[in-house]
């Protein structure tokens, strides 16, 4: 197996163009598991850890642009106020050691339906920046996932960054697992309430072939929330929102939980996340 180590971004894109079968590796928290368990034997590994551009973040107009190589640890430490939902999600990723290494770029690259970052990105209306020697494009994350571990990324493209609105809404993220740390989601839910645009964003993890939005639930809630008065959310609205989130999921029965439980838990998480986001627009605990 070849080990390719580009020194900068331009070289990385050139190398990827020349070796479209090369598997990019940053933190290695997912790639190395597959290699160790003999589930993947890529023709080459493309080491991105020398590409310093990938570990930068900054504003880009109305957007916050975060390099694909920023670790979960840094998202928590440096960006909790700017990406509150994603920071909550980052806290649930693996162990401290994994959070020190793992990156959102890696999560997007694997495109697992259970990726912890994905629901928060969906709820926030994020864009994924893909680049190749042919150019750069920004894809709404809602259009990014095409199937289990599949995305719109073409073989010659690398994930450069993700972008979220520079002014976040009230965001929440919650994840159900069968132990209290270091666990893959049985299901997860992210919510973003944007009072300025009176819009609602949602993201569902581990309850379908891809990360999902609950579009009907979003529309329902956007129409029903008392944006004007900031009064309490009627119980019936919260309950209906939960139901709509649960029914938006497309879960299966597997070793981590049953489909029925996932729908039920998503409804509970949606109700709770709504209450927290509405009463505490500052977001994260």
């Amino acid at each position, binding site marked *: 197996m070849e080990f390719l180590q580009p020194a900068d971004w331009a070289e990385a894109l050139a190398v990827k163009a020349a070796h479209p079968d090369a598997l990019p590796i940053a933190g290695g928290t997912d790639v190395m598991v597959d290699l160790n368990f003999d589930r993947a034997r890529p023709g080459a590994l493309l080491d991105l850890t020398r590409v310093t551009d990938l570990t930068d973040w900054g504003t880009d107009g109305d957007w916050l642009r975060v390099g694909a190589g920023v670790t979960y640890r840094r998202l928590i430490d440096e960006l909790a106020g700017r990406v509150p939902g994603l920071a909550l999600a980052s806290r649930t990723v693996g162990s401290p050691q994994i959070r020190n290494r793992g990156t959102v770029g890696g999560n997007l690259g694997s495109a697992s339906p259970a990726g912890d970052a994905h629901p928060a990105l969906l709820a926030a209306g994020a864009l994924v920046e893909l680049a190749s020697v042919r150019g750069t494009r920004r894809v709404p994350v809602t259009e990014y996932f095409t199937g289990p571990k599949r995305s719109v990324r073409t073989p010659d493209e690398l994930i450069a960054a993700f972008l979220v609105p520079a002014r976040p809404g009230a965001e929440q*993220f*919650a994840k159900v697992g*069968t132990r*209290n740390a270091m*666990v893959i989601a049985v299901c997860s839910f992210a919510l973003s309430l944007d009072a300025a645009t009176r819009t609602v964003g949602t993201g569902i993890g581990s309850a379908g072939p891809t990360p999902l939005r609950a579009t009907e639930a979003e529309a329902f809630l956007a129409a029903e929330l008392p944006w004007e008065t900031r009064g309490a959310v009627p119980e019936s609205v919260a309950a209906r929102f939960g139901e709509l989130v649960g029914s938006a999921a497309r879960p299966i029965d597997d070793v981590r*939980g049953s489909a029925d*439980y996932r729908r*039920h838990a998503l409804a509970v*998480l949606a109700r709770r996340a709504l209450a927290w986001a509405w009463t505490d627009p500052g977001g994260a605990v």
Partner: protein
Amino acid sequence: MTVSTVAPATVEGGVGTSARRPDGILKVAGEFAYSSDLWADEMLWGATVRSPHPSAEIRAIDITAAVALPGVYAVLTAADVPGARHYGLEVVDQPVLAIDEVRYEGEPVAIVAADHPETARRAAARITVEYAVRAPVTDPEDALSRGDLVRHVPVRRFASAGGTALTADVVVTGTYEVGMQDQAFLGPESGLAVPAEDGGIDLFVATQWLHVDQKQVAACLGLPAEKVRLSLAGVGGAFGAREDLSMQVHASLLALHTGKPVKMVYGREESFFGHVHRHPARLSYEHGATRDGKLLYVKARIVLDGGAYTSSTPAVVANAATLGVGPYDVPTVVVEAYGVYTNNPPCGAMRGFGAVQACFAYESQMDKLAAEVGLDPVELRRRNAMTTGSVMPTGQLVHGPAPVADLLALVRDRPLPPAATGDPRERPGGVANTTRGEGVVRGVGYAIGIKNVCFSEGFDDFATARVRLSVVGGEPAVLVHTAAAEVGQGLVTVQAQIARTELGVTKVTVATADTSVGSAGSSSASRQTYMTGGAVRAACQAVKATVLARVGRAGELALVDGKVVASDGAVVASLVDLLGNDVVEETVEWRHKPTRPLDPVTGQGDAHVQYAFAAHRAVVDVDTELGLVRVVEIATAQDVGKAVNPQAVVGQIQGGTAQGLGLAVMEEVQVVDGVIRNPSFTDYLIPTILDMPPMAVDVLEMGDPDAPYGLRGVGEPPTISSTPAVVAAIRAATGRPLTRVPVRPEHIAL
């Protein structure tokens, strides 16, 4: 820690002190050499081809492509086994390599040796096995009705002669299930086999019982036992999973075949197929009692799924049967326990060994009965608690201390933990932000269990110790040599402590365990401190007698701080002077008092050596809407007879409790149609530090007059009652019946 009676610790680093473990710092620093770290020049790596099917006929095996791979030195199948083609602990029924059929998913079919582990794995993948797949038998009840019985153990005892009618004012019934738990030791199966010049083999391996391995390996290699020499390599946990052979014969076969050292190390996934698991069980109970909660009878039917081969199922069934009503006085008992063969993964020894499954059922029943008669769960148990002089359902009189009521009182009287502070780590769901208190209800539950210590049913249970006293570098020094397996529990430390106490010598070395000394028996059944500890003590006493005989007046003399001391404290001689260049060495084979077989019809007989008891109180916070559980605190009380190493005792209690907590809320090898669905630590979850709460531990030391230093085996009891205590607490919080462990979120939330 509360200690009721404390013997003065007169010897530094002796019995009763928390002497420091020699392996402690190495393990914490990551420098300890485990069996997976073994290395020899020119060594080859072994790999195993395993069946993907739970049941199939083998039509053909084609190894040509594997042999053709550069770097491959050997590819072996059943036809290449020179000696016995089967092995087993008691019943020899498991093929070294599959012969014409496979009976479980993961059964070894062929083995490969190559100069690189990756090459060995690739070669293994090139072996083509033609299977004719059969429908597996996976339901234990089906197996029972087909007659695929490993063992049936009845235990029948009646309050009045001929009185077989089971009637009572209050009757509660229940059917319970226990899922398949894995020992989840952290050091996977591994070892190094080195071919010797005499045509034999030197095998370095992580195991629980060197001599039982030696016997089986020698038989399969067709060699006399003395040509198969085993040494214990660094063991990363055992918990029963190393009782059966894994890679021992395979690596030895490859080494003899190639004439080179061969190392085998299972990966985590392979490890789930490489060892036996805890028996899944289905248990139906009926408890009859008076209106004031006095038990009149217990009737139980227990079915344990032994999987594809016998392993230790017969003894597990006997434990479940004889310990099946718990530590209670029950006038009439009718227990029928069965172990069956299926095409599920083989099950055998795991910490608690049949007592775990039974305890979950009988303690669930005791709570149900308490509710039925309107009594507090602890009070109901107290009213039925066995004591010294009680008679077991087997008719065996309980001689030693049986402080069942005291242990229950200790955990009940502990102050309850405060409410959660709001720190997310204290919530059900941990930092995953699932609740800020919504749906969270606290519950408290109790349980107590009973376990036999040492081997039972007339087994010739012994341990051997060789102790040598000599002068080394101008100081008296002791060398202790046994074949007892240090599996992480601290046995090396304990052996040295005993030698220090018995011989009054500080400088004690414990030799690496190997088969050049007699058998120590297995590091299982909570027996090693009792048995090998007893043997070391006896060998030390023999050495002491020999030494003191040189002085005369042996009865009046003691060994203290390297000196022979008279009863008035006067120094008679120093050991250095007394010994000079002499070496005093004694080897002792030591036995506990004999046990008897169970009557095959009535289940009566003095089958067990010693009984051990532990009680648990669990406090849980349950998110009743999501079904997530946070165990807030566990209080436990256990009688250990004598805490030979108090810190190690508490370590055993904490570790055992954690393993029981795991079974209560997360640990299960999920098997569907004979296929394991979660063979990884990604999906076989064990408790993390956020799942295992602080513990309040009471250690009682009520000496057993029959045991060395009065000690009682410590390792297993904590694993037995923590599971039902946690589940009882979840029931108290949720009102759900929860008849199956592990409890999953959907059992609570849906």
